[in-house]
């Protein structure tokens, strides 16, 4: 972490925050470091929470079950049904719900006190999730329209043919490269920036409280309050990014299955 060794100046957080030393399998592609450990813990906690809350599901739910039902209904009504509609939405509902809960849980790991690093702030997990969405919407398009999917998405109708010279390369980039790339980068960059701000605030508080002379510790109080504020903001951003990820996944699937505009 960005802890200072005593009296040697302020070490601002850097990119090495996201590459902690390995615990097992150092040097191989299967390197297991602190971030992987956090991901495993979050996955186990998520599965346990969902399983234990709905184990003896009653018709009139108890407290734990109604929280899970609230979350599931939020995803179903606000994201899937409002974008995809009821019939088409049913097929993609499990995938989108899973995506939402994974991203939400991994984002929240960044503010939990002893975990302190979001599972989504390193490149691996956002890329995997974006690839899953990519394969899903491409396959959905080809399954619905056959080879005509390329014509429908890359040559939108209602445009004078000369404009295809300009529109089609942009659409090719957009559909096949930029959509999954921006999905992954948006999630990664938001979580990385949030984590760096948190580390900066708390490291600054530590430094100003213990290393400053005179009245400088008072400014440490300011950065501590800033740290609390940024934590609340991180919770909001974590939820927002999970919502945006799932919503955009649903929108891309809907755009693939849509008939020619």
């Amino acid at each position, binding site marked *: 972490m960005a802890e200072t060794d005593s009296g040697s100046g302020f070490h601002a957080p850097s*990119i090495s925050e996201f590459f902690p030393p390995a615990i097992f399998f150092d040097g191989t592609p299967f390197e297991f470091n602190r971030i992987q450990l956090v991901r495993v813990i979050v996955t186990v906690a998520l599965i346990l929470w969902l399983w234990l809350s709905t184990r003896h599901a009653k018709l009139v739910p108890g407290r734990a079950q109604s929280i899970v039902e609230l979350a599931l209904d939020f995803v179903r009504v606000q994201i899937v049904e409002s974008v995809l509609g009821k019939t088409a939405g049913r097929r993609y509902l499990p995938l989108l719900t899973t995506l939402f809960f994974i991203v939400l849980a991994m984002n929240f790991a960044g503010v939990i006190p002893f975990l302190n690093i979001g599972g989504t702030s390193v490149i691996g997990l956002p890329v995997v999730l974006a690839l899953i969405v990519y394969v899903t919407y491409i396959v959905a398009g080809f399954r619905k329209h056959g080879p005509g999917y390329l014509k429908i998405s890359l040559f939108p109708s209602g445009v004078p043919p000369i404009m295809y010279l300009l529109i089609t390369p942009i659409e090719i980039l957009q559909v096949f490269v930029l959509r999954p790339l921006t999905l992954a980068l*948006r999630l*990664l960059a938001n979580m*990385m920036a949030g984590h760096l701000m948190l580390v900066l605030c708390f490291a600054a508080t530590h430094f100003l409280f213990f290393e400053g002379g005179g009245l400088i510790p008072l400014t440490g109080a300011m950065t501590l309050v800033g740290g609390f504020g940024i934590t609340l903001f991180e919770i909001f951003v974590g939820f*927002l*990014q999970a919502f*945006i990820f799932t*919503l*955009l996944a649903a929108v891309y699937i809907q755009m693939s299955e849509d008939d020619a505009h």
Partner: protein
Amino acid sequence: MDNYAELTGNIATIGYGLATLGPGIGLGILIGKALEGMARQPEVANTLRTNMFIGVAFVEVLALLGLIAGFLFI
């Protein structure tokens, strides 16, 4: 040859500073328009708010690309 003016440090910080200009203006326009729409027609405020967040996500990607590029090319 003497150096009369010399700067040291990472140019990525200047890059990131420039990268916040465009998204800042874009976000201001977007949220301002959404607020205006919500003031004119309060009953569709929820729809407008949802769509505003989608737009904000698209614009913020560009700002965060500037931040990430600074770290990548350290």
